[in-house]
Every structure is written in C-alpha cells, then in structure tokens.
C-alpha cells in the first residue's frame, strides 16, 4: 500500500509541475497575443480624448439637469408639508 501511495504521490507531484507549467505557458502565450492585439487595435490617445470629451460634457449637463429637477421636487415637497 505504502509503495502504491508513493507512486501516486510521485505522479501527483509530476502533475503539479506539468500542470502549473502548462497553465503559465498558456497564459503567457495569451499575454503575448493580447499585446499584439492591443498594438493593432487599442484606441490611440487622441481618439480616446476625442471620444471622452462629449461624454464629460454631457455628464456636466446631466448633473445640472438633476440639480434642477431636485430643486423642483424639493419645492414641491415643501409646498405639500406647508399645507
């Protein structure tokens, strides 16, 4: 029995080494592929800023819109609690 367990332990250890090796190799390969992908298709910085600008603006507008609506609702609630 002991001998059998020894064999299995050796095999398990081997599995550990090979398994971790494959996992790392595979994911390192994927890193390389993704870096190529990024070089080809990542948005350039100018594009990014260009795309981001209107979003920020509209964000500002939205905040103002929210503020306007909040004030109106606030006023409405005040009216109600006064009568």
């Amino acid at each position: 029995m002991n001998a059998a367990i020894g064999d299995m332990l050796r095999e398990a250890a081997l599995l550990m080494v090979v398994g971790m090796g494959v996992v790392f190799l595979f994911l390192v390969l994927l890193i390389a592929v993704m870096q190529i992908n990024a070089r080809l298709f990542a948005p350039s910085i100018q594009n990014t800023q260009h795309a981001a600008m209107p979003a920020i603006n509209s964000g500002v507008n939205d905040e103002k819109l929210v503020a306007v609506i909040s004030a109106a609702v606030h006023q409405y609630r005040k009216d109600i609690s006064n009568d």
Partner: protein
Amino acid sequence: MEKLTILWQSTALANFQLGQLVMMGLGLLLLYLAIVRQFEPLLLLPIGFGAILTNIPLAGFSDAGGMLHYIYMVGIDTGVFPLLIFMGVGALTDFGALIANPKMLLLGAAAQFGIFATLLGAIALNMVPGLEYDLKQASAIAIIGGADGPTAIFLASKLAPDLLGAIAVAAYSYMALVPIIQPPIMKALTTEKERQIEMAQLREVSSKEKILFPLLVLILTIFFLPTATPLVGMFCLGNLMRESGVVERLSKTAQNELINIVTIFLGLAVGSKMSADKFLKAETLGILVLGAVAFAIGTAAGVLMAKLMSRLSGGKINPLIGAAGVSAVPMAARVVNKVGLESNPHNFLLMHAMGPNVAGVLGSAVAAGVLLALVG
C-alpha cells in the same frame, strides 16, 4: 385496517434511516446559509432543496423514473448544464480590465497553484486510514481550488461523479466564504506599505479588442489544449455574443432566462447527488478540508506572485490584487477592494482586481483541461 397499514408503510416515518435525516438536516443548513447568510443563494438554495428531496424515503426523486434522476442525466451526466452556465457567465463578463492590462493573467495563473497543491495533498491523505482517493477523485477535489462552480461541476461529472455533491457544495460554500478566508492570508503576506499602493488608471479598450479577445482565447485553446475547449469554448461564445453587439437578443437571453432556468435545474441535480450513502463518508470530510486548503493556497500563491510583480515593476502593483486570481467572481475582487480601503481610504482597487479575477476563470478552465488530458 389494511389500508391504514399500507399508508403507514408508505410514510417516511416508518422508513427513515438515520443517514437520510442527517442529510435533510444538511439540506436545511444549506437553505439557512443561502437565505439568512446569503451564501451564493442562487446555487445553494436549489442545491439544499435538492438534497432534501433526494433523501426522502420512498419518494424516489433520484431513482430511475424520478424527476431529479431525469434532470441529472439530461443536464449533468451530459455536461450540458455547466457548459450553458459557462456560456451565460461569458455573456455576463466584461474582460475590459484584463485586456487593458494583460499581465494580470500571471496572477490568474499563479492562483491555480491551489489546485495542483491540493491534488498532491489529496493523494497524501491516502495515508490517513479510512480515506482513499484515486487520481481522478483527487483531481476532481483539487479543482475546488479553482473557485469556479461550473468548472468544478463539469470536471467532477467527468472524473468523479460520486463526489459531485460534496465537491459542488464545497466549491460554492468556500466561494461564499471568500470574505472570511482570504483577508487574513492577504494581510499576513503583505506589508502595510504594500497594501497602500495606488495603481495607475487603466487605459481604455476598443470594441475591436473586446470582440477579438474571446476568439483569440478560443484559438489558443484549440491549438494547445483541446480538452479545455468545451469550457473555454462556451465561455468564449457567450462573451462573443456579448461583445459583438449584433446578437443583442441572444446575449440577453443567455445572461438571463437561459442561465436562470439552467441554474434551477443544475442546483437541484447537484443536490440530488447528496444522498446519504454517497455523502456521509470520511471522504466528504476530507473534501471539505482539502477545499479550504485549496482556497488558502490559491490565495497565497496569487498574493505572492503579485508581490513579485510589484517588486519587479518598481512598486506599481498592489500585491493585494493577487488574491483575486482565484476567481470567485466578483466576490474576490470586492474583498481586495475592501482590504485595500482599510489601509488607504483613497485606494479603489476594484477595477484593478477585476483583471486577475476574470483571469482566474480562464486559469482554472485551463487547469481543468490539463487534468482532463492527463488524468481523464
């Protein structure tokens, strides 16, 4: 009188075996954890309910002709349910954080050390009298360390269906326990100063990159690890449906109704594997212990790898994010964020932890593929 005797004979009271009562208690415990403690309720509620149903004497839920038997045969014996869940998870996953910083894949790789160390540990447990795991069973148990439910169920259904109930319950329970298991390990392996490191904002990612990502992952898997293609393939299909933007209605269905329907059935079918005769064994206790060990080792390996990368990068990486490499999406990433905030209230690590987090899903699918190739 005779009718009453038949009726009495047909009650559970006259037929209960102790083991079945214990398993029902366990089912109720799972329901408690799901409902009151909110431990992964989407899975643990149907699993707990299925565990109760399968242990009812005379009802035959899991015998030939029983409902749970049919569901198990159709969905888990074939492997279809975990694969559909994986497709849905793919459709729910945003790989943006990982694509912006592909090096995070190393953390997803390192955290899989929990799997392989546990495999060794399971074999070593054979030295304990009363415990006996062969290589297939040890591999199925070890995958708990992958912290990914469908991967664990898929692998267990292929390598050790008898242990499926215990393995699935352990996997989901520990995923829910991540906020308790991980923080002490994370703190023990990092210095206060390391935990305070703030990371640079991630770059934007183009939709082209996001569409190509699942295809590239698929192609690599096809070439180098075909045994992982069922899991990785369905995951990539879901993600491609999401990112391509041309099949919105299919993507939404995969993310919602389809994954919900399959989740109900998957949970019940997993629960149906928790019959007393298969669950109440020393082996199950071993599985619970090994599962906890696997999570701990995986966390530690992830953190240590992140520590190494932090040093090599000159302190641009907060080593805490390594803990998210075990997957347990998105719980582990949230834990990272929380522990980070404790050391530095301005340090939001959530987005940075999402990279290793989704990398961990790929990592454990790859590990499952290796185990299927070498042990299956």
